[in-house]
């Protein structure tokens, strides 16, 4: 009887602890969002989107940083997206069973979790040293490299969801594989692939470490891709660690801006995926 009580008690304690663990996890998500909202909203104004980053003590906004982040993220996606999609296509279709694909999948998974600062060092040596100066294009390349493994992975997964029957039907009509892929498989997996690209954007738009020594930062408005360019993450980094209250306030507002955009992107991506349903390829 005593033993039974002990077992029941152990069970109760263990399950209560697991509930507590979940509560702790959710608490920190709530705490971080709450801090961001309460501190970030205080600095929300039109000036944030219309003015440049100010000198210490002056008033200003984040326009040049927002512009730089958007530009570098878009170029990064233009580099990483197509490469990732084509590589994912190879893994899912042409090389589905080849041993080389197994190696590529493995390497891709390693790259997926590799520290992003390493990519920054790589691009620094590849581009910044050769060009002789920091530049927006180097930052975009670094982001593109980070986007590749994400896109490869999601593209392969999404192409694998397309029913074999559809591929067979296309092949039976005499279509070459490229025709089947571009006219049947891609349209069928479209929303899945778009989701993968959204996730890639969510991933790279918050990256700071690889931009520190590629794009660097810029106090001023610059559209020159061959020169250092301001970007939200690095501005947040520098302003948050500065002793000036107006800079710190801008850092919080920037942090709120970037987190909200990333959360919205991730949630959108999830909604798209759940619409797909199991086994379906979308319409």
């Amino acid at each position, binding site marked *: 009887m005593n033993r039974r009580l002990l077992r029941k008690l152990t069970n109760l304690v263990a399950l209560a602890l697991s509930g507590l*663990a979940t509560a702790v*996890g959710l608490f920190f998500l709530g705490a971080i969002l709450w801090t961001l909202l309460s501190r970030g909203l205080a600095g929300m104004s039109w000036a944030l989107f219309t003015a440049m980053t100010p000198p210490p003590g002056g008033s200003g906004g984040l326009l040049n940083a927002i512009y730089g982040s958007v530009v570098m993220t878009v170029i990064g996606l233009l580099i990483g997206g197509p490469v990732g999609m*084509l*590589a994912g296509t190879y893994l899912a279709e042409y090389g589905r069973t080849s041993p080389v694909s197994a190696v590529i999948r493995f390497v891709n998974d390693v790259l997926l*979790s*590799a520290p992003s600062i390493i990519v920054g060092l790589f691009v620094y040596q590849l581009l910044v040293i050769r060009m002789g100066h920091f530049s927006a294009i180097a930052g975009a390349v670094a982001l593109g490299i980070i986007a590749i493994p994400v896109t490869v992975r999601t593209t392969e997964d999404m192409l694998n969801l397309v029913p074999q029957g559809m591929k067979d039907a296309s092949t039976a009509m005499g279509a070459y594989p490229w025709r089947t892929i571009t006219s049947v498989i891609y349209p069928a997996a479209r929303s899945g692939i778009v989701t993968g690209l959204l996730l890639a954007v969510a991933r790279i738009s918050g990256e*700071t470490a690889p931009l520190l020594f590629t794009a660097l930062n810029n106090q001023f408005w610059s559209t020159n891709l061959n020169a250092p360019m301001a970007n939200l993450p690095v501005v947040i*980094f520098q302003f948050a660690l500065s002793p000036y209250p107006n800079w710190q306030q801008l850092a*919080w507002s920037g942090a709120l801006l970037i987190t909200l955009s990333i959360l919205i992107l991730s949630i959108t991506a999830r909604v798209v995926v759940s619409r797909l349903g199991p086994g379906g390829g979308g319409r």
Partner: protein
Amino acid sequence: MNTAAAIDPRHAAGQRLRERLFRAATWVAAFLVLILLGGVAASLVHGAWPALAHFRLHFLTSEVWNPVTDQYGALAAVYGTVVTSIIALAIAIPVSFGIAIFLTELAPAWMKRPVGIAVELLAAVPSIIYGIWGLFVLAPVLQRHVQPWLIDTLGPLPLVGKLFQGPPFGIGILTAGIVLAIMVVPFISAVTRDVFETVPDVLKESGYGLGATTWEVIWQVVVPYARTGMIGGIMLGLGRALGETMAVTFVIGNAHRIGSSLLAPGTTISAAIANEFTEAVGDLYTSSLIALGALLFLITFTVIAAARFMLLRLERRALSSV
């Protein structure tokens, strides 16, 4: 194919050409992934070479990091990297385990998805946000409330006491470890939840059929079945913690020294690179920082590769049992 050729040979030739081009394009892109890894490794070794040739093994065994005298040793940074990651895992493993149990065995169906998504959203928050939050919110709380208590209660103890002595800085090794723990919990719990879900219901039901409690089924049936996957998930979290840059840079204090106290400021490999790289003057300084990067790459590559290998084996087992 033959009929198409019979109808219009030029059309068929054009199709074959496009097929070849498209196929080549996908092949090149796929190989680019391999080249990328090779390129990263090669460029790191190339950049690190001057420092490694100059300091040889001393680079790994020396704690001194002095830009003024041009002496660089990686030991303090490696120590900080390893210790912060150990603290992070010590906190994150039990919490993630609890979350995975809650999500697979306890939560009512309507709660599973939203809670699961909320935990996963924690993983999507960029690391710089954790850094700024850790510096402005977590560090003051630790400095005022937690660290004085640690110093008073654990400080006088023999052996472990040394870890909790000195002034409460707020920032330091312990704070960095806690921030890292918050960051890796979503990763480990997501993987653990997924491997828990691969446990066949029949196994669990036979446990319940024998009169086992929920906890006994989890501990004696689910965990042994899911062990490899759990370790894979933990190592994935470890890889993340070892390489994390921005969150740590904010709260670690950036001091190249090995203090006996966990409350003291320290540094990690990635924090040192992030802090010093753009300001490094002199080839030896830059090269030493790249050498640190190469070291980090080697460590994380080993950990991540081992994790992926374990998860891969698990996937095969799951496929073969279907």
